[in-house]
């Protein structure tokens, strides 16, 4: 090969590596479903150890080098390992169980970005507005000392209602990071393993439901922009409070299949009453051979009774200690 061709190839490669994956897709055309939609079907996983927000020790560093990535993966892998027993009992009990129950992935994202958030550049969820912050503080103050009054006061996850990473928007967690996408004429359905919700997204351009209707997972409407599926979701409830968002949350998700085995998933959170600015994150979803399993969370949730019984036992112990000291 002539040296000039080599330089050209090399520089093209360098340019391509520097581009966001979505921008590279123009060279790859996804297959189509029988009714002509770009085909996103299959089972996918978004497991990764790249955090949503940039860790403090990586402030100002948007990307890792390959060597830094290997070191980071090793360090986080060790920190995540639930089989270590080097913590005091109060923290050790919180590690819950052996590592073989977890399935959080072992690698950072292919872009080697240090946070899933790509906008703003600091990789952080923007600050809440003063009013939203005030509301959040008031909610926390009201909940203080009442965390175990009854099942309703426990977290939505513990009540098997909704998982903050199951979405929308969909983010990786410590297990069940699996999704199945099914397309039929006029609809895309996304089955989420965590908490087992199926989100049915109509593509026919119908308007959102009335603003008076609020739903745990909002109300999604989809459309194709070229080969990208754009899903617009509104009608959220104030009870989910995704990263501090309220019922005015307007979520826009982009699903672009960039090669046979990857969907690049991006979402933008727009909620002017909650956040001081909008923000965007990018999460690669990789094809997986594994099926999505049922997660019938409510069915065997013995832990709810266990936690409430634990709180009653704590209260009794505190009362006994008080009476005993008189």
């Amino acid at each position, binding site marked *: 090969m002539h040296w000039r061709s080599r330089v050209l190839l090399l520089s093209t490669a360098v340019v391509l590596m520097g581009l966001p994956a979505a921008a590279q897709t123009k060279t790859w055309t996804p297959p189509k479903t029988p009714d002509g939609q770009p085909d996103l079907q299959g089972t996918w*996983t978004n497991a*990764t*150890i790249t955090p949503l927000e940039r860790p403090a020790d990586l402030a100002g560093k948007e990307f890792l080098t390959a060597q830094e990535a290997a070191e980071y993966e090793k360090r986080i892998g060790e*920190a995540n390992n*639930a*089989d270590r027993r080097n*913590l*005091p*009992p*109060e*923290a*050790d*009990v*919180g*590690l*819950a*169980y*052996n590592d*073989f*129950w*977890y*399935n959080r*992935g*072992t*690698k*950072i994202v*292919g*872009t080697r970005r240090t946070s899933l958030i790509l906008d703003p550049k600091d990789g952080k969820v923007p600050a809440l507005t003063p009013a939203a912050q005030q509301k959040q503080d008031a909610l926390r103050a009201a909940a203080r000392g009442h965390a*175990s009054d009854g099942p309703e006061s426990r*977290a939505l*996850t*513990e009540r*098997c209602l909704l998982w903050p990473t199951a979405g929308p928007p969909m983010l990786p967690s*410590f*297990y*069940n990071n699996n999704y199945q996408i099914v397309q039929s004429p006029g609809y895309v359905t996304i089955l989420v393993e965590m908490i087992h919700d199926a989100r049915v997204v109509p593509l026919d351009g119908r308007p959102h439901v009335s603003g008076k209707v609020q739903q745990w997972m909002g109300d999604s409407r989809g459309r194709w922009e070229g080969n990208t599926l754009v899903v617009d979701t509104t009608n959220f409830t104030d009870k989910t409070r995704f990263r501090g968002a309220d019922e005015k949350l307007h979520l826009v998700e982009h699903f672009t299949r960039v090669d046979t085995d*990857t969907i690049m998933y991006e979402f933008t959170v727009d909620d002017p009453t909650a956040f001081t600015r909008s923000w965007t994150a990018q999460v*690669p979803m*990789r094809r*997986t*051979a*594994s099926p999505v*399993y*049922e*997660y*019938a*969370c409510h*069915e*065997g*949730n*013995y*832990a*709810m009774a*266990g*936690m409430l*019984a*634990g*709180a009653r*036992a*704590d209260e009794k112990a505190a009362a006994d200690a008080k009476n005993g000291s008189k």
Partner: protein
Amino acid sequence: MRTKLAVVMVGLGLVLTAVPVRAHHAFAAEFDAKKPVKLRGTVTKMEWINPHAWIHIDVKGADGTTTSWMVEGGTPNTLFRRGLTKDSLAVGTEIVVDGYQAKDGSNRANGRDITFTDGRKLFLGASSSDAPYAGKDGEK
């Protein structure tokens, strides 16, 4: 004293923030860090249920009496994905559970560390590197 307490608090804060959020629910709300237990027992039943699996064991005391315990694990989905089945932990298997007892004093514990009696970890035969999605759990 005040300085010492502050140092301890800061140290604890560092340790706690180093622990990522885990599990489907707050294990610290259900189990008592002040009641560590080490149980050696025989599996009588495995409940492969979500959100968390439960292993039932019979523990023989020094006086010859038998006590039944329930031990909490994690989601069975992860294990299914690794090729384990409901037959993977046979009734009669002897195991050792190192965990914490329920706050309400009932015979429930979390399986913070479960091993066979020879020290091998349970379910280790199907480590994540053997999983069908090996190499595909993150990015290329």
